[in-house]
């Protein structure tokens, strides 16, 4: 199958007064039509910057995409002019954001904000656009949409606003929906509803979804494949069932272990000790090594390559063929 989106060796760096931050450093993946890709990682791992690179919405300065290609339907969007890019944004690739309380403009009605997106891409009359917006609000489960369309964002709850955001993202029937932590700011009960809605809509429109989250529970439910990111690097990439059944990378293992389980008798929640490394310094070795319980000398000195392991790709010396010699016998 032809991939809808193919990202190759993407590097997005931020040039700050404190030094250069490689926020996304050589990330490659693809998303097929109708597929849901989950990108998992803690804050600062480069998930959101990856998404914004695809939308070409990385604030420049300080951010800059310095390497790689992003093929959308076979065309490299990194070489497109800003005007061509605007035809893609919101039309072919749509995005929803983390905090629905702040992602809608407080001074315009939700109807106005949806209609605006329809009019710029679909070349329809305002009346048709309004009808379309009502239809979309209905689709995302907003009761009496013909009334609510005149509401301002502050008259709606967080869950409702996120539904509005989804309606807005879907109004031009995009091929790819990028959801940047769409449930993080919501109540747990609402989270499930929103995830279900995204799944339903994905089926209905045969869309692809790129789901960014730090919550493994979210990707377990919704994703086909997942990427685990850490400090701008891809650490593990594979089918969701495989990764959940048998996480390979120590970081993925750590993430899995930190999911609280009711069945567990442990008194304390498990966590991965330490924090993300300061990437502005010349960093040597594996970026996870300072926090890794299985790190050996080589991990601190050399950057591990991506290793193909069956259907899985993992960035760890442990899985390098003949890596045992370099790595030393793993215990």
């Amino acid at each position, binding site marked *: 199958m032809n991939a809808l989106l193919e990202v190759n060796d993407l590097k997005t760096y931020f040039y700050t007064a404190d030094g250069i931050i490689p926020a996304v450093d050589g990330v490659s993946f693809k998303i097929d039509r109708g597929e849901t890709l989950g990108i998992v990682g803690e804050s600062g791992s480069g998930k959101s910057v990856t998404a914004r690179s695809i939308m070409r919405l990385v604030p420049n300065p300080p951010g800059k995409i310095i390497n790689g290609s992003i093929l959308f339907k076979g065309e490299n969007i990194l070489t497109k002019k800003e005007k061509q890019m605007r035809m893609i*944004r919101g039309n072919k690739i749509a*995005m929803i*954001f983390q905090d629905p309380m702040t992602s809608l*403009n*407080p*001074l315009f009605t939700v109807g106005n904000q949806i209609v605006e997106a329809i009019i*710029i*891409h679909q070349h329809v009359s305002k009346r048709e656009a309004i009808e379309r917006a009502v239809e979309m609000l209905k689709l995302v489960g907003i009761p009496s949409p013909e009334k609510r369309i005149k509401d301002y964002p*502050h008259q709606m709850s967080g869950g409702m606003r996120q539904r509005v*955001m989804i309606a807005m993202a879907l109004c031009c029937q995009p091929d790819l929906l990028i959801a940047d932590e769409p449930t993080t700011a919501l109540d747990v009960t609402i989270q499930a509803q929103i995830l279900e809605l995204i799944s339903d809509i994905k089926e209905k429109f045969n869309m692809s979804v790129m789901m960014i989250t730090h919550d493994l529970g979210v990707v377990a439910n919704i994703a086909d494949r997942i990427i685990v990111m850490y400090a701008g690097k891809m650490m593990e990439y594979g089918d969701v069932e495989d990764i959940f059944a048998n996480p390979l990378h120590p970081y993925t293992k750590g993430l899995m272990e930190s999911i609280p389980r009711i069945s567990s008798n442990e008194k304390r929640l498990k966590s991965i000790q330490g924090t993300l490394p300061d990437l502005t310094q010349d960093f040597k070795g594996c970026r996870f090594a300072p926090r890794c319980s299985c790190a050996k000398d080589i991990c601190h000195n050399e950057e591990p390559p991506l290793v193909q392991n069956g259907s899985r790709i993992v960035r760890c010396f442990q899985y390098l063929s003949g890596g045992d010699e370099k790595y030393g016998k793993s215990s």
Partner: protein
Amino acid sequence: MFNYIIKRLLQLIPVLFGVSVIVFLMIYLIPGDAAEIIGGPTATAEEVENIRVKLGLDRPMYEQYIKYISGVLRGELGYSFQTGQSVSEAIKIRYGNTFSLAVFSAIIAAIIGVGAGVIAAVKQNSWFDYLSMSVATFGISAPTFWIGLLLIVVFCVKLKWLPISGFSSQFWTKDGLTHMILPSITLGFSSAAMIARMTRSSILEIIHQDYVETARAKGLSERVVILKHALKNALIPVITVIGVNFGGLLGGAVVVESVFAINGIGRLMVQSINARDFPMVQGTVLVVATTFVIINLLTDIIYAVIDPRISYK
């Protein structure tokens, strides 16, 4: 919205009452006995007493206030000590000049200030940003009369593009307009500078908001993102500055009217203060203060029109 406006109108009543009390008490706020000051150093005790009776200053204070306020409500502000002219008539003649000057200045200040502020914010750290913000700092610091004189020297004396004096409030005629330009720029300069700085910082804050990113992610052009989504939000604090500055424009008119020889309320006020013409001072202060209160009311209503969240609070 309607309820909000009614509510704000009702709130106007105690404010205007306060204004009238303060204006009324002005005559007591000056040190010494008002009747003696009015009479001057040569007045005999009898003459001072006559003045006191004539002004009603011998009556109890509440009685004096009731007499004063009932006159005000009927539009009678008393008669000038100096000329015997009706105060309300004198103000009526001059009010239009000052008000049209202030409005014109406010419009010029708003257009230049918001425009420069937006461009400076969008092109942050560019030469335009540095230049406009330097001019703005200059505009805030330079005294009004000096800017007025400078403009007169350049545009009237050297270049001979515009007339020096002969102001009329009929700005819709070509003649009126040419007379309006320099005084308005002089008066509005510092206001424009403040608006520009406020707009710039407000836009810079707003463009990092999530909804601005949402607008970009929709595929809107940068122009629409800034002028529709960012500017409308950024204008809320800017409108406060414009509203408050309008009061400053009325006050600043005192200087500009003197520099450009405009027959306005500011000059009338200064002349009356110098002549100790109390009814005239009271009348002009009352009118200017009321105008200011009404402008503030309009500012609040504009808020509610722009920001739907306000009327709900």
